[in-house]
């Protein structure tokens, strides 16, 4: 039955991308289309006194200049998500800044002109007056204190959210046990950097009271709902068309305020408007991620078994974060024990507002938990004089321990943490490495091996997020159209979902075409986010296919005068089992279904299609182990990653090639986060890395050939799938950091910050080189 699922089928979507025939938002051209550009605040905090648009409005080619007074009243409802209640706690949302500004990059005005060049000329002519105030940023615990200046005066506090589950027994053990380590760690602000920036073309069809939006989004239906809410339009008057999307990683999940401004502006002009975010805007004005301060502790008994752990976590959520009041603090705490048996945990998490761009979920938003845990495990092992691999072996959850409930809540089933640990260690040659490391040290060369073991929660089953829909339609000629409520943006869903449907229907892969992204034709679903497609979308496709398959068999049974139970479908043909020359093609069945209703079994309606949904369990866990072999040049601080191994278990793989691609992309982002990327703000609240010359992404020369091992432990979900696509980014930073720590072990340095730049590493070795 499984002809395609499990195979590395080449992707159907590739030819158009390879030949430049993809359609991304900036490729869309509508008649009479105008172009928008934003004026953005260059003050992080202060009163917005005035904006003078006289000269800008008079500039040739300028159609309109909109300020907050023009745009904001049109926003009937602005919510962080369509499901969020209007009483959801959070900062006051506004499309354009009105009387004050709260971060550098906040949009203040929109210019609409005949082309982008002219729009930018006009932006240059806008005159803004501010009364700057001192911004609140950087020192999170200081900002969180009572009685300090406020980022959002309306909210009375700079603490966006806080939660703690103290555990005195844990505190006691962390103090009293001889083997106990406490680490101060900090993760720098990073940003998603999809290669395609955000963008939108809005076409307000006044005569129909309809709006059509070409969007670069991971979640077309959500985009539709939020647009409808914003404008006070019924949802069926809003169409979102998301063709090809050049990456998202979480930055394109909800309707952002910049997009809201353009949508609102479109109602004020007679023509379609296009806004393409440029890269500088993307780096400083699109929500970013990851800024965390962590105090992590762990204590073990004399046998190296973890007795207690502590996690005090601060996260910076900027001024207008995606999720209203914060980031992933609670998730960080929940998943912190990860793949180990940790009996008790004392934890707290606090999200703090600041005058910086807002925080947004970015591939593995709770990565701080793996980073903190894997680092403290290595340091505790070192304190005990135990090899980090051995320490992990003593604490990793074994199959016989399952199901295992963490003190922080999550219950793990179907994971294979121990197996991935062993497989990764074997592939990288862990045992022989220690001897190699010793040899190298004798000649002044410092090699290190870092492990990172983690569990990845995926396919969350909350609310709409846990449900996906698929419509499977068999056309009269026997070929199939499938539409999904997903928002494919590189995951290969046109291929993987076709593999699934083709197998279910016994068809050829080439006979199944899968599409998503157009809300007029796709069923309502929750997009492509949170590693949900394999578990939820595939099963929706399966459910719809099974309904169709049953009907195919019923019709064929009538045509063949056989019983449904005696039939099988293979190679697009329905045959009687054991009688190979008796059969009808799917095409013949489809023809009958559509054109010859009289030939159908009595009671069976004509047509051959189904829409079905799948509802996921609360969460599905995959797991993996990363092993990173590197060398640190102690004269320059340069890190060279020589080998990188990932042993992963995501249950059954629909397309192994696609799985490995997802791992690789995540690993590269994690390497970037560990060594290169840093969205720095200066003390005045100016983001400093606003071009690719300063925000450094890894290139082909920075990512080694990744070696993979696969373990298959089926999930309880039909198909045995698990979501896994964020894992690469979750595991990698700790693997690299542990590798560097391992390399520099002889020097006894304390690694606190990321990224591990050459300057930082050399500063660790020679403290007089450091600024602080």
């Amino acid at each position, binding site marked *: 039955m499984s002809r395609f699922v499990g195979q590395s089928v080449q992707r159907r979507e590739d030819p158009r991308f390879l030949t430049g025939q993809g359609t991304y938002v900036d490729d869309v051209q509508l008649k009479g289309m105008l172009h928008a550009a934003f004026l953005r*605040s*260059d003050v992080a905090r202060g009163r917005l006194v005035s904006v003078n648009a006289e000269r800008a409005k008079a500039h040739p080619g300028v159609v309109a200049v909109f300020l907050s007074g023009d745009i904001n009243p049109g926003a009937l409802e602005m919510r962080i998500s369509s499901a969020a209640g209007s009483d959801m706690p959070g900062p006051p949302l506004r499309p354009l800044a009105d009387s004050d500004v709260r971060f550098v990059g906040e949009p203040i005005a929109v210019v609409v002109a005949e082309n982008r*060049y002219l729009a930018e000329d006009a932006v240059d002519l806008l005159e803004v*007056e501010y009364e700057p105030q001192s911004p609140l940023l950087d020192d999170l615990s200081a900002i969180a204190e009572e009685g300090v200046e406020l980022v959002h005066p309306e909210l009375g506090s700079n603490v966006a959210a806080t939660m703690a589950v103290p555990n005195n027994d844990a505190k006691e053990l962390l103090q009293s046990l001889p083997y106990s380590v406490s680490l101060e760690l900090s993760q720098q602000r990073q940003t998603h950097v999809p290669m395609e920036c955000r963008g939108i073309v809005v076409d307000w069809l006044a005569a129909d009271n309809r709006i059509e939006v070409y969007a670069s989004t991971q979640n077309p239906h959500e985009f539709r709902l939020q647009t409808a809410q914003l404008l006070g339009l019924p949802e069926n008057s809003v169409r979102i068309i998301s063709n090809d999307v050049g990456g998202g990683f979480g930055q394109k999940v909800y309707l952002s305020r910049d997009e809201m401004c353009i949508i609102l502006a479109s109602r004020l002009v007679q023509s379609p408007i296009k806004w393409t975010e*440029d890269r500088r*805007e993307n780096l*400083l004005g699109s929500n970013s991620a990851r800024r965390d301060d962590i105090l992590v502790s762990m204590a073990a008994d004399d046998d190296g078994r973890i007795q207690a752990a502590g996690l005090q976590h601060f996260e910076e959520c900027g001024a207008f974060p995606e999720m209203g009041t914060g980031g992933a603090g609670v998730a960080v705490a929940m998943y912190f024990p990860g793949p180990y048996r940790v009996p008790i945990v004392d934890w707290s998490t606090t999200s703090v507002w600041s005058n910086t761009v807002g925080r947004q979920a970015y591939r593995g938003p709770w990565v701080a938990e793996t980073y903190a845990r894997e680092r403290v495990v290595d340091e505790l092992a070192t304190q005990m004089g135990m090899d980090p691999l051995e320490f992990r072996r003593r604490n990793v959850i074994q199959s016989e321990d399952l199901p295992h409930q963490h003190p922080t809540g999550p219950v793990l089933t179907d994971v294979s943490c121990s197996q991935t640990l062993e497989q990764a260690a074997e592939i990288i040659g862990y045992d022989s490495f220690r001897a190699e490391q010793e040899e190298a040290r004798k000649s002044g060369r410092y090699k290190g091996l870092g492990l990172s073991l983690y569990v990845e929660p995926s396919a969350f089953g909350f609310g709409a997020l846990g449900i996906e829909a698929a419509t499977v339609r068999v056309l009269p000629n026997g070929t199939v159209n499938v539409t999904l409520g997903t928002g494919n943006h590189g995951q290969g869903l046109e291929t993987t979902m076709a593999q699934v449907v083709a197998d279910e229907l016994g068809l050829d892969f080439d006979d199944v075409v899968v599409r998503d992204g157009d809300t007029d034709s796709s069923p309502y679903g929750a997009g492509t986010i949170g590693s949900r497609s394999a578990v939820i979308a595939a099963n929706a496709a399966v459910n719809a296919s099974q309904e169709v398959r049953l009907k195919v068999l019923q019709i064929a049974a009538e045509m063949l005068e056989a019983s449904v139970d005696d039939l099988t479908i293979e190679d697009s043909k329905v045959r009687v089992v054991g009688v190979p020359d008796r059969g009808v093609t799917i095409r013949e069945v489809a023809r009958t279904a559509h054109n010859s209703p009289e030939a159908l079994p009595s009671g069976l309606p004509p047509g051959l299609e189904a829409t079905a949904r799948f509802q996921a369990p609360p969460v599905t866990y995959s797991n993996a182990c990363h092993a990173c072999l590197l060398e640190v040049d102690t004269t*320059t601080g340069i890190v060279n990653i020589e080998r990188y191994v990932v042993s992963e278990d995501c249950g059954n793989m629909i397309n192994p090639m696609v799985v490995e691609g997802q791992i690789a992309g995540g690993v590269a982002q994690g390497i970037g986060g560990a060594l290169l990327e840093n969205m720095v703000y200066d003390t005045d609240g100016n983001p400093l890395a606003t071009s690719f010359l300063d925000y450094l992404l890894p290139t082909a020369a920075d990512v080694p050939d990744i070696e993979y091992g696969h373990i298959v432990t089926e999930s309880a979900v039909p198909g045995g799938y698990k979501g896994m696509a964020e894992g690469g980014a979750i595991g990698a930073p700790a693997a690299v950091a542990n590798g560097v720590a391992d390399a520099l072990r002889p020097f006894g340095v304390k690694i606190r910050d990321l990224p591990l730049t050459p300057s930082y590493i050399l500063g660790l070795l020679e403290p007089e*080189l450091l600024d602080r």
Partner: protein
Amino acid sequence: MNEWFSSYDRQASRGLGVEVKPGPFTYYRPESISEISGLLAEIGENAKLLAGGQSLVPMMSMRLVQTENVIDINRVAEIQGIERQENFLRVGAATTQATVESDSVVGEAVPLLTQALPLVGHFQIRNRGTIGGSIAHADAASELPAVALALDAELHIAGSKKDRSLPAEEFFEGLWTTALEADELLTHIDFPIWEGNSGFALEEIAPRSGDFALAGAAVGLKLAEDSTISQAAISLFGVASTPVRAGVAETALRGESPTPEELSDIAKLALEGIEVRTDIHANAAYRRRVSVALVEKALTKALGEARG
């Protein structure tokens, strides 16, 4: 490193435009040096010369540079080409980096150039970027100004009123600032050819390959008949606001036939008298520390090559 790209005038009464489309300008495409000079005499104060554009165009797109006039000098045959003379190699300022990189005459006559070029950006950049453009742009962290300085290159300049030439050490005045006046054009660069037993090396540290260097050293050593060092050039880049010669270390090398330990000690003198800079990628202390290591590495290689 590129403060321009990460800074903006916050005193200004306009907000942050984050532009990527350049402002309007009048475009000229002269075909001779005299035509360029004529244009510069007329509009030089309000014009930018466009060579490879790999540095200028991004700045124009981001509106960090605004100009009313752009003079495209890529079609002027007189300022292109590579010509080996007796004691020097003459390179037209508008010769692309790619052309020079793959030229075997260059490899033989001025090996330091051939060593430096693969480190300049990426090959797509070098297909358009020019030798003269890079030198005239004078980024403190780029390789070619440092090579010109190391080799005591002679820079030929055409002006609207007169032509002149300058040694490299008088050409670089500050960050992105050279001795070129508004009405002047760099036409040729003469790179001295080092005869006899010489060796060259260029070592740098960059966050990723092709990035501007955090620190770098371009080195040339020549040996006399008795195998002592007769000529020594150490040119540091990325550490100060211009490329700089490590004069104290150079003096210490002359007349010597250093052992590895002695080379190491001399390398430590490399930063004497040099004011080292700090930016978001590295602080001054780091730059000092690694420059010494880079100088040592480069000297070792160059000496090895010179000794044959």
